[in-house]
C-alpha cells in the first residue's frame, strides 16, 4: 500500500534543480492534512506553521516549520525553545533538504546481490518485518539472544529501541558514546556523580575551552552564550593544535601538542594549589581528596608542562592565575579535549578538579537539568524484562568495570563480533547509525559485518552501513514523524510530523512496535500508534496532545514539596566533589588526576586530527545538497613548512597511510595547524552509492583510525593514530 504521489524516479529527475523544485509535487494525504487542520495548525489551503524539533544533530533545537500547500518550505528556530531561541545553525536550516533528498529510501529493501553490491529489491513492510522477525527469532533459538547485537545513536526514539533490545533479551548494545565522550562522562561521574554538569555563561568572566570548538561545532544556544559572554568582556582561552574559527575569536590561542592537554591542566592545578589561589571555603566544605591532589600535582610545574605541551611556561602561569582570580566566575569547559588519547580520562578528571578548586559550582557550573525520559511524564505499561545472563561482548563490566552499561565500548563490541571472543555474534540490528563510518578501522568493521548471518538497518538513507545490510527499513524523517516527547528542565517538547511520510517510510515507534509484535513481544509495546504513545506519556500532566501539538511544548508543574534540591549534595560515594576517588583507587587506577605519557609519532609521521565543521554532523549530512553547496572542499590540512619539506603544493593529491589503512586526498597547505599534525574533516569518503551527492566526495578518516581503548572509560583514543603523507 503506497500513498505517495511522486515516485523516487520523479525525485531523481528533479535532483540538481532548485530546492523549490524538490519541494513541489508532494501533497499531504488526507489523514495528516485533516488532523493538522483539526488541530488548528494548518488552514484550508494546508498552509501554516507547525512547531517541532530539529534532528540535524543531537542538540535538539526547537523549530517552527512553515508549510505552504502541504509542503515544508522553511524552518526557523523556535523562540520559545531554550536550545534554539529563534535561531538555527546551517544544518538546522538545511533540514528540509534531508527530507526532500532524492536519495531517500522510501520502501523496505531486501538485498538480492552480494553484500556491498548495493543490489536490493523493494518489499512490503509485511514481507520485510516477517523476514527480520524470523531471522532474529532463528538466531535467538539457535545461539541465544546475546548473539544478536543492537546498536543505535543518541535519539529521541532510543527509549523504544532499548525497549526492543531489552525485551528481546540481548545484553549487547552499541552506542556512539565510546567513540565520542566516554572519557568526559566517566570523568564527570567519578568527580561530580553526574554525566555532564551544565555550563552557565551568564556570569562567566574567564573561560578555558580545551578543544571545544564552539564556533564550528555549533550548539546554537551555547555558541550564542559564549559570544554574549565575550561581548560582556569575558576572556576566552582556547587550546587546539589547529587555528579554528574559535581560535580566531580567542583572547589567547594555545596551539598545544596533541595528547598533552593533561599536562597543561595538571600545571594549572599545580600553580593554583602552590600559590594558594583556590577557593578554600568551597574546597573544605564540598570536596574530598584535596591533600592527595596537592601531593599528586606537586611535581607538575609550568616549566615541566611547557616542555611537554610545547607552550610557554609563562602562558601557563598566567592562565592559572587569571583563571583562579576569576574564582567562581571562571569556567573550564568540561565537555571536550583537543585530541583524544588513552589519557583523555585523566584530562577530564583534571578539568573537573580545576573547576572544583575555584568553587564555580552554582555559578558557571550547575547540575544538568532534566532528563531525556521525562520524569514528569508517563509511559505505556509493560512487563519486566527477561534477565540477560550472557556476558557483554564489549567487556562491560568484566573488562571495563567503570564503564556505565548504557555507554558501553562500541569499538570493543565490533572487535568481539569479528574475533568471536568470548562468543560469536550472528546478527546485527542497527538503527539511525552508520558504524561503517563512525567506528575506527573501517576494514575491520566490514570484516565484522562479514561474520554476521543477518544485518538489518533502519535509516532514511541507504547509508554506508545499510549498503551492506540484508534488510533496510526506511524510517520517516524527523519532519514526517512523531518521536517520544522530550523534556528540557521543566519544559516538555514535541517532535511531530509537519508533512506526511513520503513513500512507505514509517516512524521508529511504528517499526519497533510492529517488529516487537512479530517477535512475540507485543506486551512491551502497548500503544495503538504514535499518537497513543504520546497520549500515554502526557497522561499524568493533564495536557492534551492537541494542546502540546499547537504550542510545541508544555511547562510541567513545579515539584509540590516546594523545597529546592540541595545542589551541593553530589551523587558520589562521599556525597562531595571527589578530587580523589576511592572508586578509581579501589579499581587499581589513579585516585587523582595524574600524568600519563601519551604515545608520539616518530619517523616523520604526523598526528591525525579530526574535528567538526559547522556545515556537517558526523557522517549523516554529507548528502544534503544545501550543506554540500556551502561546505569547504574536504581536504587534508598540512602546515606550510611540513608541505615544503614534502615538496607539496596546495591542492596536490597525497596518499595518507596509517597502521591500518590508506586514503588519497587533496591537501590544504595552511599556516593554521601545528607542523607535526594533519587534519581532516570526518564524515566524507562515503562508500555507499546510495548517496548521489555525497558519494566520491573527500576521503574517510575511519579508514585510517587505529582502535585504541582507554581501560578506565572505554573511550576510543581517536588521535592516537599516526600517519605518513606522501605526494602522488
Amino acid at each position, binding site marked *: 500500500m503506497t500513498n505517495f504521489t511522486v515516485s523516487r524516479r520523479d525525485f531523481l529527475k528533479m535532483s*540538481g*534543480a*532548485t*530546492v*523549490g523544485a524538490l519541494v513541489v509535487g508532494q501533497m499531504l494525504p488526507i489523514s495528516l492534512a485533516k488532523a493538522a487542520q483539526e488541530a488548528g495548525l494548518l488552514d484550508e489551503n494546508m498552509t501554516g506553521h507547525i512547531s517541532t524539533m530539529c534532528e540535524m544533530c543531537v542538540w535538539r533545537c526547537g523549530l517552527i516549520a512553515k508549510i505552504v500547500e502541504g509542503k515544508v*518550505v*522553511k*524552518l*526557523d*528556530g523556535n523562540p520559545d525553545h531554550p536550545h534554539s531561541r*529563534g*535561531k*538555527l*545553525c*546551517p544544518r*538546522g*536550516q*538545511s533540514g*528540509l*533538504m534531508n527530507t526532500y533528498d532524492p536519495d531517500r529510501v522510501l520502501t523496505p529493501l531486501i538485498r538480492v546481490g552480494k553484500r556491498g553490491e548495493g543490489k536490493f529489491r523493494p518489499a512490503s513492510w509485511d514481507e520485510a518485518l516477517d523476514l527480520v522477525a524470523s531471522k532474529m527469532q532463528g538466531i535467538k533459538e539457535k545461539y541465544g539472544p546475546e548473539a544478536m547485537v543492537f546498536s543505535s545513536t543518541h535519539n529521541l526514539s532510543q527509549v523504544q529501541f532499548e525497549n526492543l533490545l531489552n525485551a528481546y533479551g540481548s545484553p549487547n548494545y552499541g552506542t556512539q558514546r565510546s567513540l565520542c565522550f566516554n572519557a568526559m562522562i566517566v570523568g564527570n561521574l567519578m568527580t561530580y556523580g553526574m554525566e555532564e554538569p551544565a555550563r552557565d555563561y551568564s556570569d562567566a568572566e574567564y573561560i578555558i575551552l580545551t578543544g571545544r570548538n564552539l*564556533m*564550528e561545532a*555549533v550548539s*546554537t544556544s551555547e*555558541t*550564542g552564550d559564549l*559570544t*554574549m559572554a565575550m*561581548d560582556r568582556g569575558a576572556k576566552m582561552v582556547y587550546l587546539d593544535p589547529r*587555528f579554528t*574559527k*574559535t*581560535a*580566531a*575569536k580567542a583572547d589567547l*590561542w594555545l*596551539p598545544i601538542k596533541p595528547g598533552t592537554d593533561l599536562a597543561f591542566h595538571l600545571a594549572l592545578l599545580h600553580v593554583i594549589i602552590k600559590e594558594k589561589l583556590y577557593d578554600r571555603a568551597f574546597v573544605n566544605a564540598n570536596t574530598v581528596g584535596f591533600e592527595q591532589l596537592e601531593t599528586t600535582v606537586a611535581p607538575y610545574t609550568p616549566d615541566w608542562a611547557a616542555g611537554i605541551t610545547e607552550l610557554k611556561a609563562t602562558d601557563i602561569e598566567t592562565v592559572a592565575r587569571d583563571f583562579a582570580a576569576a574564582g567562581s566566575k571562571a569556567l573550564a569547559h568540561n565537555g571536550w579535549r583537543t585530541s583524544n588519547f588513552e589519557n583523555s580520562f585523566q584530562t577530564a578528571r583534571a578539568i573537573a578538579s580545576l573547576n572544583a578548586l575555584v568553587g564555580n559550582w552554582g555559578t558557571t557550573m550547575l547540575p544538568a537539568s532534566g532528563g531525556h525520559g521525562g520524569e514528569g511524564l508517563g509511559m505505556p505499561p509493560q512487563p519486566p524484562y527477561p534477565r540477560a545472563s550472557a556476558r557483554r561482548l564489549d567487556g562491560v563490566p568484566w573488562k571495563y568495570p567503570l564503564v556505565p552499561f548504557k555507554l558501553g565500548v562500541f569499538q570493543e563490541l565490533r572487535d568481539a563480533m569479528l574475533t568471536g571472543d568470548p562468543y560469536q555474534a550472528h546478527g546485527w540490528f542497527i538503527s539511525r547509525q552508520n558504524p561503517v563510518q563512525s567506528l575506527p578501522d573501517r576494514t575491520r568493521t566490514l570484516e565484522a559485518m562479514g561474520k554476521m548471518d543477518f544485518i538489518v538497518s533502519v535509516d532514511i538513507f541507504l547509508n554506508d552501513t545499510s549498503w551492506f545490510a540484508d534488510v533496510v527499513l526506511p524510517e520517516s524523517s524527523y519532519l514526517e514523524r512523531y518521536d517520544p516527547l522530550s523534556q528540557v528542565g521543566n519544559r516538555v517538547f514535541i517532535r511531530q510530523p509537519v508533512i506526511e511520510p513520503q513513500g512507505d517510510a514509517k516512524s521508529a515507534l511504528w517499526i519497533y512496535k510492529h517488529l516487537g509484535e512479530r517477535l512475540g513481544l507485543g506486551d512491551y509495546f502497548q500503544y495503538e500508534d504514535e499518537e497513543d504513545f504520546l497520549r500515554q506519556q502526557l497522561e499524568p500532566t493533564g495536557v492534551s496532545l492537541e494542546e502540546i501539538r499547537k504550542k510545541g511544548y508544555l511547562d510541567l508543574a513545579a515539584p509540590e514539596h516546594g523545597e529546592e534540591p540541595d545542589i551541593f549534595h553530589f551523587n558520589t560515594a562521599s556525597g562531595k566533589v571527589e578530587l580523589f576517588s576511592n572508586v578509581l583507587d579501589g579499581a587499581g587506577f589513579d585516585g587523582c588526576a595524574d600524568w600519563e605519557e601519551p604515545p608520539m609519532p616518530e619517523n616523520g609521521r604526523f598526528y591525525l586530527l579530526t574535528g567538526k565543521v*559547522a*556545515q556537517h554532523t558526523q557522517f549523516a549530512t554529507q548528502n544534503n*545538497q*544545501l*550543506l554540500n*553547496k*556551502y561546505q569547504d572542499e574536504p581536504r587534508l590540512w598540512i*602546515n*606550510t*613548512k611540513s608541505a615544503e619539506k614534502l615538496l607539496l603544493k596546495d591542492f596536490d593529491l597525497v596518499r595518507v597511510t596509517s597502521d591500518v589503512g590508506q586514503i588519497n586526498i587533496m591537501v590544504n597547505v*595552511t*599556516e*593554521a*595547524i*601545528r*607542523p607535526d599534525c594533519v587534519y581532516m574533516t570526518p564524515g566524507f569518503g562515503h562508500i555507499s552509492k546510495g548517496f548521489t551527492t555525497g558519494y566520491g566526495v573527500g576521503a574517510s578518516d575511519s579508514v585510517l583510525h587505529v582502535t585504541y581503548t582507554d581501560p578506565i572509560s572505554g573511550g576510543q583514543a581517536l588521535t592516537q593514530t599516526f600517519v605518513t603523507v606522501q605526494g602522488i
Partner: protein
Amino acid sequence: MSTQATPGKYGFLIDVTHCIDCRACNVACSVENNVSMDSTRIWMNGTGVVGEFPELSSSTAPFHCMHCNDPSCVSACTVGALTRDHDGIVQYDDDRCIGCRYCIYACPFQVPNMDLDEKMPLIVKCDMCGDRLQEGEQPACAATCPPGAIQFGRREDMLAKAHQLITDHPDKFIQHVYGEHENGGTSTFYVSPVPFEELGFPMTSSTSSAYLNRLVTHGTPAVFGAAAISLSGIYLTIKNVKEESAEEARIAAQTAVVQAAEGAAAETAAIEAEESTSEEA
C-alpha cells in the same frame, strides 16, 4: 536628472567580530528564496588565515546586496527590471530582465550574480526577504544567525548602533562604518576589527556611479532601440569572453568593475556624443 539618494527604511548591521563563518545565513537564504543550487544571494568574504604559525588571525563576514541609497544597478538597468522600492529595498523583476548583465558591471559591490550555465540567466540578489518582512519577520539571514552577527531593523537605528559600537570599543573596531558612505550610502552597515580591504570588501567611491549611468539609461529614451541593439552586441561579446565557472566569473567581474569605474566617464562621453549625433539626425 535628480539623484534618488534618500535613505531607505530598513537596514542591516553586521558585526564582523561576531561572524563565525558557519554559513547558516547562506543556507537560510537559499531555502527562503528558493535559490538555485548553482548560485547564491549571499556569500562569505574574509581575510583568510593571516600571519605565520602561531601568530595568526582571521575574520569573515557575510556579504549580500547593500541596498544603496542611489543604486548603480537600478540606474544601469535599461528595462526597469531593477528598481528601488519605497522602503529603499532594491527589487528585481525577472519578467523584465533581458539578461544584459549591465547591473553586474554597474554594481561596485559585485553583488548581482547569475548562473552562467543557464541559457537565459537571471540575476540573483538579496531583496531583504520581502515576504518575511510583510509577515513581520526578520530576513532569513538575520533571523537565524547563531552568534547574532547579522542584525536587522530600522536603518537609522542600525547606523546609530554601528557608530555606538565603534565609539564605545575603539580597541575592538576600526573607526569605519562600511556602507555608510560607500557608493553614496547604503542600507547595510559593517563594523570590523580589521580594515575592510583585508576582508576583500570592494573599496568604492563615496558618490554613487548611478548619476553617470542615468545619463546613459534615462537620457536616451528616443534611441532605446539602438541602445538595445548595441547592448546585445556587448552582451554577445561578454558571453564569448566569459564562459567560465561562476566563481571565475565573480573574479572576472571584480576586475571588470574596476575597469568600468575607471572607464565610465570616457564611455559615457562616447555615448553622449552618439546621442547628440542621433538627435541631430
